[in-house]
């Protein structure tokens, strides 16, 4: 049901945009072109940030660093009752969106969707975003160099989401 609803969502929204334009006598085609041009200019500004970040993320994923960090964080994970199998998701989630989805796919395949590990990974994956990508792209687009404490605040939220995923799955599901 939800799947069908979300399939209709985007076409419905686009139609709403167009109809509201026609209703208010907006020169919709010309305005669309102007807006699209602005979008392209912005895109050009964020290409360098994306290249820099994706390069680092690809290297990270190819290097086996995820296994090394997971191993290193084992004692800490034990201390907060987080299963070792969930730790890679906690590390990968803020770094790589595609990587996190691929990892969730593998985890659900191995442990099943209703296992504790499957549930915790699902909640963790859904409750936060690709933090580094968002920071790089958003600040890259408006030319801000000094991000002050953005990374600390955003990572604090990510850490909270990871820890809460474990607690909430234990409590609710």
């Amino acid at each position, binding site marked *: 049901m939800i*799947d069908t609803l*979300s399939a209709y969502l*985007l076409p419905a929204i686009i139609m709403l*945009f167009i109809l*509201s*334009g026609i209703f*208010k006598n907006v020169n919709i085609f010309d*305005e*669309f*072109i*102007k807006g*699209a041009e602005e*979008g*392209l200019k*912005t*895109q050009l500004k964020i*290409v360098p940030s*994306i290249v820099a970040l*994706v*390069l680092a*993320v690809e*290297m*990270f994923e*190819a*290097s086996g*660093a995820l296994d*090394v*960090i997971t191993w290193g964080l084992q004692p800490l994970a034990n201390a907060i009752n987080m299963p070792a199998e969930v730790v890679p998701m906690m590390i990968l989630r803020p770094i790589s969106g595609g990587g996190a*989805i691929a990892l969730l*796919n593998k985890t*659900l395949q191995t442990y099943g*969707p*209703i296992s504790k590990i499957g549930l915790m990974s*699902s909640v*963790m994956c*859904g*409750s*936060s975003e690709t933090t580094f990508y*968002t*920071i790089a792209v958003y*600040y890259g*687009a*408006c*030319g*801000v*160099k*000094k*991000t*002050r*404490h*953005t*990374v*600390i*605040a*955003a990572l604090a*939220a990510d850490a909270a*989401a990871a820890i*809460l995923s474990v607690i*909430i799955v234990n409590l609710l*599901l």
Partner: protein
Amino acid sequence: MINYIWAALIVISVISALFTGRISEITSAVYKGGDSAIQLCISMTAIMAVWGGLMRIAEKSGLTNIISKILSPLVGLVFHKLDRKSEAAKAISMNVAANMLGLGNAATPLGIDAMKKLNALNSKSNEADNNMITFVVLNTASIQLVPTTIAALRSKYGAENPMDIAVAIIITSIISLIVGLVINKLIIIITSRKRETH
């Protein structure tokens, strides 16, 4: 800060590759990284153009005003120092609406638009102000009403009720957002005190 994170990602990767014996993998990742970055940019270019165009229509038709009026109490709750009628507040509303509906593709161009409008109100254009930091934290916390991607994966592996995690995800997102906002506020208070004593 993002400098250090970027450097750390690369340095940790190279050192890990030495330990795990994946030097040839990491070498090819350098080339693959450039390729996938450009591929990502190409698909993003289309999204940026489409949503840039649609947004302009929505602004001209007044649709943006309506959506921002509906979400104004919510946006005002997080951005209490921002003028609710400003262009930036409207752009934030559009981004929040896209995030809540799970339109991930639209959320990025709308978020960038909001960041640019926030930066226009910023007195130092190369340094993030408090509203901009709050907005980034809001976006990294991912408040989504219906987690479609996760549910689709869960149903693929036989979950009878793939949406069973939706409530847990919303609770986790909201609490983690609050944690992020509180840490943000604390740092602002501490640093402004330091500035006063100097």
